[in-house]
Protein backbone atom coordinates (compact mmCIF):
# COMPACT_ATOMS: atom_id res chain seq x y z
CA UNK A 1 0.00 0.00 0.00
CA UNK A 2 1.27 3.38 -0.96
CA UNK A 3 0.03 6.89 -0.90
CA UNK A 4 1.13 10.39 -1.60
CA UNK A 5 1.73 12.41 -4.63
CA UNK A 6 4.18 10.21 -6.48
CA UNK A 7 3.42 7.15 -8.61
CA UNK A 8 1.65 4.26 -6.91
CA UNK A 9 2.02 0.55 -7.53
CA UNK A 10 -0.18 -1.70 -9.62
CA UNK A 11 -2.28 -4.72 -8.53
CA UNK A 12 -4.06 -3.02 -5.62
CA UNK A 13 -7.82 -3.17 -4.97
CA UNK A 14 -8.02 0.60 -5.28
CA UNK A 15 -5.67 2.59 -7.48
CA UNK A 16 -5.86 6.36 -7.48
CA UNK A 17 -3.65 8.09 -10.05
CA UNK A 18 -2.84 11.79 -10.10
CA UNK A 19 -6.32 12.99 -9.26
CA UNK A 20 -7.16 16.64 -8.95
CA UNK A 21 -10.43 18.00 -7.69
CA UNK A 22 -11.22 21.62 -8.28
CA UNK A 23 -14.38 23.40 -7.24
CA UNK A 24 -15.61 26.59 -8.77
CA UNK A 25 -16.89 29.13 -6.27
CA UNK A 26 -18.00 32.17 -8.21
CA UNK A 27 -14.97 33.39 -10.15
CA UNK A 28 -12.60 31.56 -7.81
CA UNK A 29 -11.25 28.06 -8.43
CA UNK A 30 -10.54 26.05 -5.31
CA UNK A 31 -8.10 23.14 -5.59
CA UNK A 32 -9.27 20.60 -3.02
CA UNK A 33 -7.10 17.69 -4.14
CA UNK A 34 -3.90 18.01 -6.14
CA UNK A 35 -2.11 15.22 -8.04
CA UNK A 36 -3.07 12.61 -5.47
CA UNK A 37 -1.98 8.96 -5.77
CA UNK A 38 -3.12 6.14 -3.57
CA UNK A 39 -3.08 2.35 -3.54
CA UNK A 40 -5.16 0.30 -1.14
CA UNK A 41 -4.91 -3.47 -0.95
CA UNK A 42 -7.76 -5.80 -0.22
CA UNK A 43 -8.31 -6.24 3.52
CA UNK A 44 -6.59 -3.02 4.55
CA UNK A 45 -7.92 -0.54 7.04
CA UNK A 46 -6.91 2.96 6.02
CA UNK A 47 -7.60 6.15 7.94
CA UNK A 48 -7.49 9.69 6.55
CA UNK A 49 -6.91 12.60 8.89
CA UNK A 50 -6.48 16.26 8.34
CA UNK A 51 -7.89 19.67 9.19
CA UNK A 52 -11.33 20.76 8.03
CA UNK A 53 -11.32 21.61 4.34
CA UNK A 54 -8.26 19.48 3.66
CA UNK A 55 -10.19 17.29 1.20
CA UNK A 56 -10.80 14.14 3.30
CA UNK A 57 -14.50 13.85 2.57
CA UNK A 58 -13.95 14.90 -1.04
CA UNK A 59 -11.47 12.04 -1.41
CA UNK A 60 -13.94 9.62 0.16
CA UNK A 61 -16.68 10.84 -2.19
CA UNK A 62 -14.42 10.30 -5.20
CA UNK A 63 -13.45 6.80 -4.04
CA UNK A 64 -17.12 5.98 -3.49
CA UNK A 65 -18.16 7.17 -6.94
CA UNK A 66 -20.33 9.91 -5.49
CA UNK A 67 -18.30 12.56 -7.28
CA UNK A 68 -15.85 12.59 -10.16
CA UNK A 69 -12.33 14.04 -10.15
CA UNK A 70 -11.41 17.01 -12.33
CA UNK A 71 -8.39 15.09 -13.58
CA UNK A 72 -6.79 11.70 -12.99
CA UNK A 73 -8.19 8.19 -12.66
CA UNK A 74 -9.59 5.90 -9.98
CA UNK A 75 -9.61 2.15 -10.59
CA UNK A 76 -11.37 -0.28 -8.25
CA UNK A 77 -10.96 -4.02 -8.85
CA UNK A 78 -10.06 -3.32 -12.49
CA UNK A 79 -13.09 -1.00 -12.98
CA UNK A 80 -12.04 2.46 -14.08
CA UNK A 81 -14.81 4.48 -12.45
CA UNK A 82 -13.67 7.96 -13.43
CA UNK A 83 -15.37 7.94 -16.82
CA UNK A 84 -18.48 5.98 -15.92
CA UNK A 85 -21.84 7.54 -16.66
CA UNK A 86 -24.00 8.61 -13.71
CA UNK A 87 -26.22 5.55 -14.14
CA UNK A 88 -23.30 3.12 -14.40
CA UNK A 89 -21.67 4.69 -11.38
CA UNK A 90 -24.87 4.17 -9.38
CA UNK A 91 -24.94 0.49 -10.35
CA UNK A 92 -21.23 0.20 -9.52
CA UNK A 93 -21.76 1.74 -6.07
CA UNK A 94 -24.55 -0.75 -5.34
CA UNK A 95 -22.18 -3.64 -6.05
CA UNK A 96 -18.87 -2.41 -4.69
CA UNK A 97 -19.26 0.22 -1.97
CA UNK A 98 -20.68 0.16 1.54
CA UNK A 99 -21.20 3.59 3.10
CA UNK A 100 -21.04 4.40 6.81
CA UNK A 101 -21.94 7.99 7.68
CA UNK A 102 -21.25 10.07 10.77
CA UNK A 103 -24.99 10.67 11.37
CA UNK A 104 -25.90 7.01 10.60
CA UNK A 105 -28.50 8.23 8.06
CA UNK A 106 -31.02 5.48 8.70
CA UNK A 107 -34.53 5.87 7.32
CA UNK A 108 -36.51 6.70 10.49
CA UNK A 109 -39.77 5.14 9.30
CA UNK A 110 -38.18 1.77 8.61
CA UNK A 111 -37.18 -0.83 11.16
CA UNK A 112 -33.56 -1.93 11.61
CA UNK A 113 -34.36 -4.95 9.44
CA UNK A 114 -35.91 -2.84 6.69
CA UNK A 115 -33.02 -0.37 6.77
CA UNK A 116 -30.48 -3.15 6.35
CA UNK A 117 -32.59 -4.74 3.64
CA UNK A 118 -32.57 -1.56 1.50
CA UNK A 119 -29.43 -2.31 -0.59
CA UNK A 120 -30.69 -5.85 -1.18
CA UNK A 121 -33.85 -4.49 -2.81
CA UNK A 122 -31.64 -3.62 -5.76
CA UNK A 123 -30.61 -7.24 -6.22
CA UNK A 124 -32.52 -10.19 -7.64
CA UNK A 125 -32.56 -12.01 -4.31
CA UNK A 126 -35.84 -13.54 -3.18
CA UNK A 127 -37.55 -12.31 -0.02
CA UNK A 128 -36.33 -15.37 1.89
CA UNK A 129 -32.77 -14.84 0.69
CA UNK A 130 -32.89 -11.18 1.60
CA UNK A 131 -34.12 -12.09 5.06
CA UNK A 132 -31.25 -14.50 5.52
CA UNK A 133 -28.68 -11.91 4.45
CA UNK A 134 -30.17 -9.22 6.70
CA UNK A 135 -30.23 -11.53 9.71
CA UNK A 136 -26.61 -12.48 9.09
CA UNK A 137 -25.52 -8.83 8.83
CA UNK A 138 -27.42 -7.89 11.98
CA UNK A 139 -25.90 -10.85 13.79
CA UNK A 140 -22.40 -9.72 12.77
CA UNK A 141 -23.05 -6.29 14.30
CA UNK A 142 -24.70 -7.85 17.37
CA UNK A 143 -28.21 -6.51 16.80
CA UNK A 144 -30.13 -9.59 15.68
CA UNK A 145 -32.44 -9.18 18.67
CA UNK A 146 -33.31 -5.63 17.70
CA UNK A 147 -34.18 -6.09 14.07
CA UNK A 148 -37.77 -4.95 14.52
CA UNK A 149 -36.83 -1.77 16.36
CA UNK A 150 -37.09 1.61 14.70
CA UNK A 151 -34.05 3.93 14.76
CA UNK A 152 -35.70 6.12 17.43
CA UNK A 153 -35.82 3.06 19.70
CA UNK A 154 -32.05 2.51 19.42
CA UNK A 155 -29.07 4.27 20.98
CA UNK A 156 -26.59 6.17 18.80
CA UNK A 157 -24.14 3.30 18.91
CA UNK A 158 -26.83 0.82 17.98
CA UNK A 159 -27.96 3.02 15.11
CA UNK A 160 -24.41 3.10 13.80
CA UNK A 161 -24.26 -0.69 14.07
CA UNK A 162 -27.41 -0.91 11.95
CA UNK A 163 -25.77 1.46 9.46
CA UNK A 164 -22.72 -0.81 9.39
CA UNK A 165 -24.96 -3.83 8.84
CA UNK A 166 -26.57 -1.96 5.93
CA UNK A 167 -23.10 -1.23 4.54
CA UNK A 168 -21.92 -4.86 4.69
CA UNK A 169 -25.12 -6.70 3.79
CA UNK A 170 -24.32 -6.83 0.06
CA UNK A 171 -20.74 -7.88 0.76
CA UNK A 172 -19.26 -4.87 -1.09
CA UNK A 173 -15.64 -4.64 -2.28
CA UNK A 174 -14.85 -1.99 0.34
CA UNK A 175 -16.40 0.16 3.03
CA UNK A 176 -16.18 3.95 3.21
CA UNK A 177 -16.67 5.40 6.67
CA UNK A 178 -16.97 9.16 7.07
CA UNK A 179 -16.36 10.00 10.74
CA UNK A 180 -18.17 6.85 11.92
CA UNK A 181 -17.61 7.71 15.58
CA UNK A 182 -17.99 11.47 15.26
CA UNK A 183 -21.42 11.55 16.84
CA UNK A 184 -20.79 8.95 19.55
CA UNK A 185 -19.52 8.97 23.13
CA UNK A 186 -16.17 7.34 23.80
CA UNK A 187 -17.61 3.99 24.92
CA UNK A 188 -19.86 3.66 21.88
CA UNK A 189 -17.04 4.90 19.65
CA UNK A 190 -14.76 2.18 21.01
CA UNK A 191 -17.43 -0.45 20.38
CA UNK A 192 -17.90 0.74 16.80
CA UNK A 193 -14.17 0.74 16.20
CA UNK A 194 -13.92 -2.76 17.64
CA UNK A 195 -16.64 -3.82 15.24
CA UNK A 196 -14.87 -2.24 12.28
CA UNK A 197 -11.62 -3.94 13.32
CA UNK A 198 -13.50 -7.26 13.45
CA UNK A 199 -14.84 -6.67 9.97
CA UNK A 200 -11.29 -6.11 8.76
CA UNK A 201 -9.56 -8.87 10.67
CA UNK A 202 -12.19 -11.61 10.75
CA UNK A 203 -14.19 -10.88 7.58
CA UNK A 204 -11.41 -9.50 5.38
CA UNK A 205 -13.19 -6.23 4.68
CA UNK A 206 -11.33 -3.29 3.18
CA UNK A 207 -12.16 -0.09 5.05
CA UNK A 208 -11.30 3.50 4.24
CA UNK A 209 -12.20 5.88 7.04
CA UNK A 210 -12.11 9.62 7.58
CA UNK A 211 -11.69 10.74 11.16
CA UNK A 212 -10.64 13.67 13.27
CA UNK A 213 -9.94 11.49 16.27
CA UNK A 214 -6.29 10.32 16.58
CA UNK A 215 -7.37 7.51 18.94
CA UNK A 216 -9.71 6.19 16.29
CA UNK A 217 -7.12 6.63 13.54
CA UNK A 218 -4.57 4.68 15.58
CA UNK A 219 -6.68 1.56 15.16
CA UNK A 220 -6.22 1.59 11.39
CA UNK A 221 -3.46 -0.23 9.53
CA UNK A 222 -2.22 3.01 8.09
CA UNK A 223 -3.11 6.65 8.49
CA UNK A 224 -2.76 9.30 5.81
CA UNK A 225 -2.77 12.98 6.50
CA UNK A 226 -4.33 15.28 4.00
CA UNK A 227 -3.15 18.83 3.99
CA UNK A 228 -4.22 21.35 1.38
CA UNK A 229 -5.13 18.58 -1.02
CA UNK A 230 -1.88 16.66 -0.67
CA UNK A 231 -1.69 13.20 0.86
CA UNK A 232 1.08 12.41 3.35
CA UNK A 233 1.57 8.98 4.86
CA UNK A 234 2.03 9.07 8.60
CA UNK A 235 4.88 6.60 9.25
CA UNK A 236 4.18 6.71 12.96
CA UNK A 237 0.85 5.09 12.33
CA UNK A 238 1.96 2.18 10.21
CA UNK A 239 0.66 0.02 12.99
CA UNK A 240 0.06 -3.32 11.45
CA UNK A 241 1.90 -2.94 8.20
CA UNK A 242 0.53 -4.27 4.94
CA UNK A 243 -1.57 -7.36 5.11
CA UNK A 244 -0.24 -10.55 3.65
Amino acid sequence: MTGGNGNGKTGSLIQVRRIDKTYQRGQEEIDVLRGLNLDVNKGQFVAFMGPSGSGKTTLLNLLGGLDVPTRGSITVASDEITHMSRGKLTEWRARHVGFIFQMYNLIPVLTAFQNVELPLLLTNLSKAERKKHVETALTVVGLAQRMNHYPRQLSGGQEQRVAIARAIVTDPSFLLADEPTGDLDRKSADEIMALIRTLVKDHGKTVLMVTHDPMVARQSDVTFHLDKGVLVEDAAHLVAGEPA
Partner: protein
Amino acid sequence: MKFSSLIFANLLRKKARLILTVGSFAIALFLFAFLAVVRAAFNQQADVASADRLISRNHISLSEPLPLSYYEQIARIPGLAAVTHFNWFGGIYQNEKNFFPQFVIDPEHQRQVMPELVVPDDQWQNFVHDRQGAIVGAKTAKRFGWKIGDRIPIQNSRYGPLSTWDFNIDGIYHSQNPGGDETQFWLQWDYFEEKVPQDFKGRVGWYTVKLDKPDSALSVSNAIDSLFDNSAYETKTETESAFAASFVKQFGNIEGLIMIIGSVVFFTLLLVTGNTMAIAVRERTGELAVLKAIGFSDRTVLFFVLAESLLIAVIGGVLGLGLSALAIPGLGSTLAGMLPPLNLSATILALGLLASLLVGAVAGIVPGIGAMRMRVVTALRRI
Protein backbone atom coordinates in the same frame (compact mmCIF):
# COMPACT_ATOMS: atom_id res chain seq x y z
CA MET B 1 -43.61 -5.23 -4.96
CA LYS B 2 -40.37 -5.09 -3.01
CA PHE B 3 -40.36 -1.27 -2.68
CA SER B 4 -43.88 -1.16 -1.23
CA SER B 5 -42.77 -1.12 2.42
CA LEU B 6 -40.61 1.95 1.80
CA ILE B 7 -43.32 3.73 -0.20
CA PHE B 8 -46.04 3.07 2.38
CA ALA B 9 -43.72 3.92 5.28
CA ASN B 10 -42.99 7.28 3.65
CA LEU B 11 -46.66 7.83 2.91
CA LEU B 12 -47.63 7.27 6.55
CA ARG B 13 -44.71 9.28 7.93
CA LYS B 14 -46.74 12.44 8.66
CA LYS B 15 -50.22 11.19 9.34
CA ALA B 16 -51.85 14.57 9.95
CA ARG B 17 -50.46 15.92 6.68
CA LEU B 18 -51.55 12.78 4.86
CA ILE B 19 -55.10 13.05 6.23
CA LEU B 20 -55.32 16.73 5.24
CA THR B 21 -54.01 16.11 1.73
CA VAL B 22 -56.15 13.02 1.15
CA GLY B 23 -59.09 14.98 2.61
CA SER B 24 -58.46 17.80 0.11
CA PHE B 25 -58.52 15.25 -2.69
CA ALA B 26 -61.68 13.63 -1.38
CA ILE B 27 -63.55 16.95 -1.08
CA ALA B 28 -62.35 18.12 -4.50
CA LEU B 29 -63.38 14.86 -6.13
CA PHE B 30 -66.75 14.95 -4.42
CA LEU B 31 -67.25 18.47 -5.76
CA PHE B 32 -66.06 17.37 -9.20
CA ALA B 33 -68.52 14.47 -9.25
CA PHE B 34 -71.38 16.69 -8.10
CA LEU B 35 -70.62 19.40 -10.68
CA ALA B 36 -70.20 16.80 -13.44
CA VAL B 37 -73.52 15.22 -12.49
CA VAL B 38 -75.27 18.62 -12.55
CA ARG B 39 -73.69 19.43 -15.92
CA ALA B 40 -74.72 16.05 -17.29
CA ALA B 41 -78.25 16.57 -16.00
CA PHE B 42 -78.55 19.91 -17.77
CA ASN B 43 -77.07 18.52 -20.96
CA GLN B 44 -79.13 15.36 -20.81
CA GLN B 45 -82.01 16.85 -22.77
CA ALA B 46 -79.71 17.92 -25.60
CA ASP B 47 -77.90 14.58 -25.50
CA VAL B 48 -81.06 12.52 -25.94
CA ALA B 49 -82.64 14.93 -28.43
CA SER B 50 -83.56 13.28 -31.68
CA ALA B 51 -81.79 14.33 -34.85
CA ASP B 52 -84.98 13.99 -36.87
CA ARG B 53 -87.18 16.31 -34.82
CA LEU B 54 -87.73 20.07 -35.07
CA ILE B 55 -89.25 22.40 -32.52
CA SER B 56 -91.22 25.34 -33.82
CA ARG B 57 -92.00 28.04 -31.28
CA ASN B 58 -93.02 31.67 -31.15
CA HIS B 59 -90.22 33.81 -32.54
CA ILE B 60 -90.44 36.24 -29.61
CA SER B 61 -89.97 33.70 -26.82
CA LEU B 62 -90.94 30.27 -25.63
CA SER B 63 -93.43 31.76 -23.22
CA GLU B 64 -95.42 33.30 -26.10
CA PRO B 65 -97.99 30.92 -27.66
CA LEU B 66 -98.73 29.92 -31.25
CA PRO B 67 -102.20 29.46 -32.75
CA LEU B 68 -103.58 25.91 -32.94
CA SER B 69 -104.58 26.77 -36.51
CA TYR B 70 -100.93 26.53 -37.58
CA TYR B 71 -101.16 22.78 -37.15
CA GLU B 72 -102.83 22.07 -40.49
CA GLN B 73 -100.52 24.45 -42.36
CA ILE B 74 -97.37 22.90 -40.89
CA ALA B 75 -98.64 19.37 -41.52
CA ARG B 76 -98.93 20.11 -45.25
CA ILE B 77 -95.20 20.93 -45.65
CA PRO B 78 -93.41 18.16 -47.59
CA GLY B 79 -90.79 16.08 -45.75
CA LEU B 80 -92.72 15.68 -42.49
CA ALA B 81 -93.61 12.33 -40.94
CA ALA B 82 -95.83 13.76 -38.20
CA VAL B 83 -96.57 16.92 -36.19
CA THR B 84 -97.77 17.34 -32.66
CA HIS B 85 -98.11 20.19 -30.21
CA PHE B 86 -97.35 20.81 -26.55
CA ASN B 87 -98.20 23.28 -23.82
CA TRP B 88 -96.34 23.81 -20.63
CA PHE B 89 -98.81 23.24 -17.80
CA GLY B 90 -96.57 24.17 -14.86
CA GLY B 91 -98.92 23.06 -12.09
CA ILE B 92 -98.00 22.40 -8.45
CA TYR B 93 -98.35 19.02 -6.80
CA GLN B 94 -98.79 19.54 -3.02
CA ASN B 95 -96.00 22.17 -2.84
CA GLU B 96 -93.54 23.89 -5.14
CA LYS B 97 -90.66 21.65 -4.06
CA ASN B 98 -92.35 18.70 -5.75
CA PHE B 99 -91.50 20.02 -9.20
CA PHE B 100 -91.78 17.82 -12.28
CA PRO B 101 -92.41 18.87 -15.89
CA GLN B 102 -96.06 18.69 -16.96
CA PHE B 103 -97.01 18.91 -20.62
CA VAL B 104 -100.35 19.17 -22.36
CA ILE B 105 -100.11 16.73 -25.26
CA ASP B 106 -101.97 15.88 -28.43
CA PRO B 107 -102.77 12.16 -27.91
CA GLU B 108 -103.50 11.61 -31.57
CA HIS B 109 -99.91 12.28 -32.72
CA GLN B 110 -97.81 11.99 -29.56
CA ARG B 111 -96.62 8.43 -30.11
CA GLN B 112 -95.77 9.06 -33.77
CA VAL B 113 -93.55 12.03 -32.89
CA MET B 114 -92.05 10.69 -29.64
CA PRO B 115 -91.80 6.94 -30.30
CA GLU B 116 -88.94 6.47 -27.83
CA LEU B 117 -91.23 7.27 -24.90
CA VAL B 118 -93.09 3.99 -24.67
CA VAL B 119 -96.50 3.44 -23.08
CA PRO B 120 -98.08 -0.04 -23.16
CA ASP B 121 -101.02 -0.12 -25.59
CA ASP B 122 -103.70 -0.97 -23.02
CA GLN B 123 -102.58 1.92 -20.79
CA TRP B 124 -102.48 4.25 -23.78
CA GLN B 125 -106.04 3.30 -24.79
CA ASN B 126 -107.27 3.99 -21.25
CA PHE B 127 -105.57 7.38 -21.41
CA VAL B 128 -107.03 8.26 -24.82
CA HIS B 129 -110.53 7.50 -23.59
CA ASP B 130 -110.19 9.32 -20.27
CA ARG B 131 -110.37 13.12 -20.55
CA GLN B 132 -108.89 13.47 -17.07
CA GLY B 133 -106.30 10.84 -17.80
CA ALA B 134 -102.56 11.32 -17.35
CA ILE B 135 -99.44 9.43 -18.35
CA VAL B 136 -96.48 9.79 -16.02
CA GLY B 137 -92.80 8.97 -16.45
CA ALA B 138 -91.47 6.01 -14.47
CA LYS B 139 -89.12 8.14 -12.36
CA THR B 140 -91.79 10.56 -11.25
CA ALA B 141 -94.19 7.70 -10.52
CA LYS B 142 -91.49 6.08 -8.39
CA ARG B 143 -90.64 9.38 -6.70
CA PHE B 144 -94.18 9.95 -5.47
CA GLY B 145 -95.17 6.30 -5.18
CA TRP B 146 -97.90 6.69 -7.79
CA LYS B 147 -99.48 3.72 -9.46
CA ILE B 148 -102.04 3.26 -12.21
CA GLY B 149 -105.51 4.18 -11.00
CA ASP B 150 -104.32 6.82 -8.52
CA ARG B 151 -106.09 10.16 -8.61
CA ILE B 152 -103.69 13.09 -8.48
CA PRO B 153 -104.71 16.68 -7.70
CA ILE B 154 -102.56 19.34 -9.34
CA GLN B 155 -102.95 23.03 -8.70
CA ASN B 156 -103.14 25.22 -11.81
CA SER B 157 -101.64 28.66 -11.27
CA ARG B 158 -100.83 29.68 -14.86
CA TYR B 159 -104.11 29.54 -16.69
CA GLY B 160 -106.76 31.74 -15.15
CA PRO B 161 -107.73 31.73 -11.46
CA LEU B 162 -106.06 29.35 -9.03
CA SER B 163 -107.81 25.98 -9.28
CA THR B 164 -107.16 22.33 -8.61
CA TRP B 165 -107.36 19.91 -11.51
CA ASP B 166 -107.72 16.21 -10.82
CA PHE B 167 -106.04 13.60 -12.98
CA ASN B 168 -106.23 9.81 -13.20
CA ILE B 169 -102.97 7.98 -13.68
CA ASP B 170 -103.78 5.80 -16.69
CA GLY B 171 -100.28 4.79 -17.70
CA ILE B 172 -96.57 4.96 -17.01
CA TYR B 173 -94.06 5.57 -19.78
CA HIS B 174 -90.42 4.46 -20.05
CA SER B 175 -87.76 5.91 -22.30
CA GLN B 176 -85.98 3.57 -24.69
CA ASN B 177 -83.01 5.95 -24.81
CA PRO B 178 -80.40 5.47 -22.10
CA GLY B 179 -80.62 8.54 -19.87
CA GLY B 180 -83.91 9.58 -21.48
CA ASP B 181 -86.26 11.77 -19.50
CA GLU B 182 -88.74 9.72 -17.43
CA THR B 183 -89.98 12.56 -15.26
CA GLN B 184 -92.71 14.08 -17.44
CA PHE B 185 -96.41 14.18 -16.72
CA TRP B 186 -98.74 14.27 -19.77
CA LEU B 187 -102.30 15.49 -19.74
CA GLN B 188 -104.87 15.58 -22.52
CA TRP B 189 -105.21 18.56 -24.85
CA ASP B 190 -109.02 18.26 -24.85
CA TYR B 191 -109.24 18.41 -21.05
CA PHE B 192 -106.86 21.39 -21.01
CA GLU B 193 -108.76 23.22 -23.77
CA GLU B 194 -112.01 22.63 -21.93
CA LYS B 195 -110.76 23.95 -18.58
CA VAL B 196 -108.68 27.02 -19.51
CA PRO B 197 -110.28 30.48 -19.76
CA GLN B 198 -111.25 31.83 -23.18
CA ASP B 199 -108.02 33.86 -23.55
CA PHE B 200 -105.93 30.68 -23.57
CA LYS B 201 -108.10 28.56 -25.83
CA GLY B 202 -106.74 27.57 -29.22
CA ARG B 203 -103.17 28.38 -28.27
CA VAL B 204 -100.33 25.92 -28.10
CA GLY B 205 -96.89 26.31 -26.58
CA TRP B 206 -94.89 24.86 -29.46
CA TYR B 207 -95.04 22.36 -32.27
CA THR B 208 -92.78 19.35 -32.53
CA VAL B 209 -92.21 18.04 -36.04
CA LYS B 210 -90.88 14.62 -36.94
CA LEU B 211 -89.00 14.59 -40.23
CA ASP B 212 -88.95 11.89 -42.87
CA LYS B 213 -85.17 12.29 -43.09
CA PRO B 214 -82.82 14.13 -40.71
CA ASP B 215 -80.99 15.83 -43.59
CA SER B 216 -84.12 17.79 -44.52
CA ALA B 217 -84.02 19.64 -41.15
CA LEU B 218 -82.79 22.92 -42.62
CA SER B 219 -85.18 23.04 -45.58
CA VAL B 220 -88.20 22.10 -43.43
CA SER B 221 -87.39 24.59 -40.69
CA ASN B 222 -86.97 27.32 -43.32
CA ALA B 223 -90.26 26.31 -44.92
CA ILE B 224 -92.12 26.52 -41.58
CA ASP B 225 -90.66 29.89 -40.66
CA SER B 226 -91.30 31.27 -44.19
CA LEU B 227 -94.90 30.20 -43.92
CA PHE B 228 -95.53 32.47 -40.96
CA ASP B 229 -93.24 35.36 -41.87
CA ASN B 230 -94.81 38.76 -41.20
CA SER B 231 -97.75 37.14 -39.35
CA ALA B 232 -98.82 38.10 -35.83
CA TYR B 233 -97.19 34.91 -34.59
CA GLU B 234 -93.90 34.43 -36.40
CA THR B 235 -92.15 31.13 -35.69
CA LYS B 236 -88.62 30.13 -34.88
CA THR B 237 -87.92 26.56 -35.89
CA GLU B 238 -84.79 24.69 -34.84
CA THR B 239 -83.60 21.17 -34.20
CA GLU B 240 -84.58 19.57 -30.93
CA SER B 241 -80.99 19.58 -29.69
CA ALA B 242 -80.56 23.29 -30.47
CA PHE B 243 -83.85 23.94 -28.71
CA ALA B 244 -82.74 21.91 -25.66
CA ALA B 245 -79.43 23.78 -25.57
CA SER B 246 -81.16 27.18 -25.74
CA PHE B 247 -83.53 26.00 -22.99
CA VAL B 248 -80.57 25.20 -20.74
CA LYS B 249 -79.03 28.59 -21.53
CA GLN B 250 -82.06 30.24 -20.00
CA PHE B 251 -80.52 29.28 -16.63
CA GLY B 252 -77.29 31.08 -17.52
CA ASN B 253 -74.00 29.66 -18.71
CA ILE B 254 -74.15 26.63 -16.41
CA GLU B 255 -71.52 24.72 -18.34
CA GLY B 256 -69.08 27.64 -18.22
CA LEU B 257 -69.71 28.17 -14.52
CA ILE B 258 -69.18 24.49 -13.76
CA MET B 259 -66.00 24.42 -15.85
CA ILE B 260 -64.61 27.48 -14.04
CA ILE B 261 -65.43 26.09 -10.59
CA GLY B 262 -64.02 22.67 -11.54
CA SER B 263 -60.81 24.19 -12.93
CA VAL B 264 -60.29 26.33 -9.82
CA VAL B 265 -60.87 23.32 -7.57
CA PHE B 266 -58.36 21.17 -9.46
CA PHE B 267 -55.80 23.95 -9.73
CA THR B 268 -56.03 24.53 -5.97
CA LEU B 269 -55.73 20.80 -5.40
CA LEU B 270 -52.66 20.74 -7.60
CA LEU B 271 -51.07 23.51 -5.52
CA VAL B 272 -51.95 21.77 -2.23
CA THR B 273 -50.63 18.38 -3.34
CA GLY B 274 -47.61 19.85 -5.11
CA ASN B 275 -46.73 21.77 -1.96
CA THR B 276 -47.17 18.65 0.18
CA MET B 277 -44.89 16.63 -2.07
CA ALA B 278 -42.32 19.44 -2.30
CA ILE B 279 -42.18 19.65 1.51
CA ALA B 280 -42.01 15.86 1.81
CA VAL B 281 -39.08 15.68 -0.62
CA ARG B 282 -37.30 18.62 1.02
CA GLU B 283 -37.62 16.99 4.45
CA ARG B 284 -36.15 13.78 3.06
CA THR B 285 -33.27 15.24 1.08
CA GLY B 286 -30.72 13.42 3.24
CA GLU B 287 -32.55 10.11 3.08
CA LEU B 288 -32.93 10.32 -0.68
CA ALA B 289 -29.23 11.13 -0.93
CA VAL B 290 -28.41 8.06 1.14
CA LEU B 291 -30.63 5.91 -1.07
CA LYS B 292 -28.80 7.20 -4.11
CA ALA B 293 -25.44 6.67 -2.43
CA ILE B 294 -26.19 3.02 -1.73
CA GLY B 295 -27.20 2.42 -5.33
CA PHE B 296 -30.80 3.48 -5.93
CA SER B 297 -30.97 5.01 -9.40
CA ASP B 298 -32.30 8.47 -10.21
CA ARG B 299 -35.32 6.87 -11.88
CA THR B 300 -36.09 4.77 -8.81
CA VAL B 301 -35.99 7.87 -6.63
CA LEU B 302 -38.36 9.62 -9.07
CA PHE B 303 -40.58 6.55 -8.93
CA PHE B 304 -40.73 6.72 -5.10
CA VAL B 305 -41.88 10.35 -5.17
CA LEU B 306 -44.39 9.77 -7.97
CA ALA B 307 -45.73 6.61 -6.37
CA GLU B 308 -46.35 8.47 -3.12
CA SER B 309 -48.07 11.34 -4.90
CA LEU B 310 -50.21 8.97 -6.99
CA LEU B 311 -51.16 6.94 -3.92
CA ILE B 312 -52.40 10.08 -2.18
CA ALA B 313 -54.36 10.93 -5.33
CA VAL B 314 -55.89 7.48 -5.66
CA ILE B 315 -56.85 7.17 -1.99
CA GLY B 316 -58.32 10.69 -1.94
CA GLY B 317 -60.00 10.22 -5.30
CA VAL B 318 -61.60 6.91 -4.38
CA LEU B 319 -62.77 8.35 -1.06
CA GLY B 320 -64.27 11.43 -2.74
CA LEU B 321 -65.94 9.47 -5.52
CA GLY B 322 -67.20 6.87 -3.04
CA LEU B 323 -68.65 9.66 -0.94
CA SER B 324 -70.32 11.16 -4.01
CA ALA B 325 -71.78 7.76 -4.96
CA LEU B 326 -73.32 7.58 -1.51
CA ALA B 327 -74.46 11.20 -1.30
CA ILE B 328 -75.62 12.13 -4.81
CA PRO B 329 -78.78 9.98 -4.83
CA GLY B 330 -79.83 11.67 -1.58
CA LEU B 331 -78.86 15.11 -2.88
CA GLY B 332 -80.77 14.38 -6.08
CA SER B 333 -83.94 13.69 -4.08
CA THR B 334 -83.48 16.81 -1.96
CA LEU B 335 -82.89 19.01 -5.02
CA ALA B 336 -85.54 17.30 -7.13
CA GLY B 337 -87.60 20.44 -7.71
CA MET B 338 -84.63 22.66 -8.46
CA LEU B 339 -82.39 20.54 -10.67
CA PRO B 340 -82.96 17.91 -13.36
CA PRO B 341 -82.51 14.28 -12.19
CA LEU B 342 -78.93 13.61 -11.02
CA ASN B 343 -77.25 10.40 -12.16
CA LEU B 344 -73.67 9.53 -11.23
CA SER B 345 -72.50 7.58 -14.26
CA ALA B 346 -69.53 5.24 -14.57
CA THR B 347 -68.05 7.73 -17.05
CA ILE B 348 -68.04 10.48 -14.41
CA LEU B 349 -66.43 8.12 -11.87
CA ALA B 350 -63.76 7.11 -14.41
CA LEU B 351 -63.13 10.74 -15.36
CA GLY B 352 -62.83 11.64 -11.68
CA LEU B 353 -60.29 8.92 -11.06
CA LEU B 354 -58.37 9.94 -14.17
CA ALA B 355 -58.38 13.58 -13.04
CA SER B 356 -57.08 12.46 -9.61
CA LEU B 357 -54.26 10.49 -11.18
CA LEU B 358 -53.39 13.41 -13.43
CA VAL B 359 -53.24 15.84 -10.50
CA GLY B 360 -51.21 13.28 -8.51
CA ALA B 361 -48.75 12.81 -11.37
CA VAL B 362 -48.33 16.53 -12.05
CA ALA B 363 -48.01 17.30 -8.33
CA GLY B 364 -45.33 14.65 -7.92
CA ILE B 365 -43.37 15.21 -11.09
CA VAL B 366 -41.70 18.53 -10.18
CA PRO B 367 -40.40 17.51 -6.73
CA GLY B 368 -39.68 14.06 -8.19
CA ILE B 369 -37.47 15.49 -10.92
CA GLY B 370 -35.80 17.67 -8.28
CA ALA B 371 -35.05 14.54 -6.23
CA MET B 372 -33.88 12.73 -9.33
CA ARG B 373 -31.44 15.50 -10.29
CA MET B 374 -30.21 16.07 -6.74
CA ARG B 375 -26.45 15.56 -6.41
CA VAL B 376 -25.65 13.11 -3.63
CA VAL B 377 -22.55 14.97 -2.47
CA THR B 378 -24.39 18.28 -2.19
CA ALA B 379 -27.33 16.69 -0.38
CA LEU B 380 -25.13 14.79 2.07
CA ARG B 381 -23.29 18.00 2.91
CA ARG B 382 -26.60 19.50 4.11
CA ILE B 383 -27.30 16.74 6.63
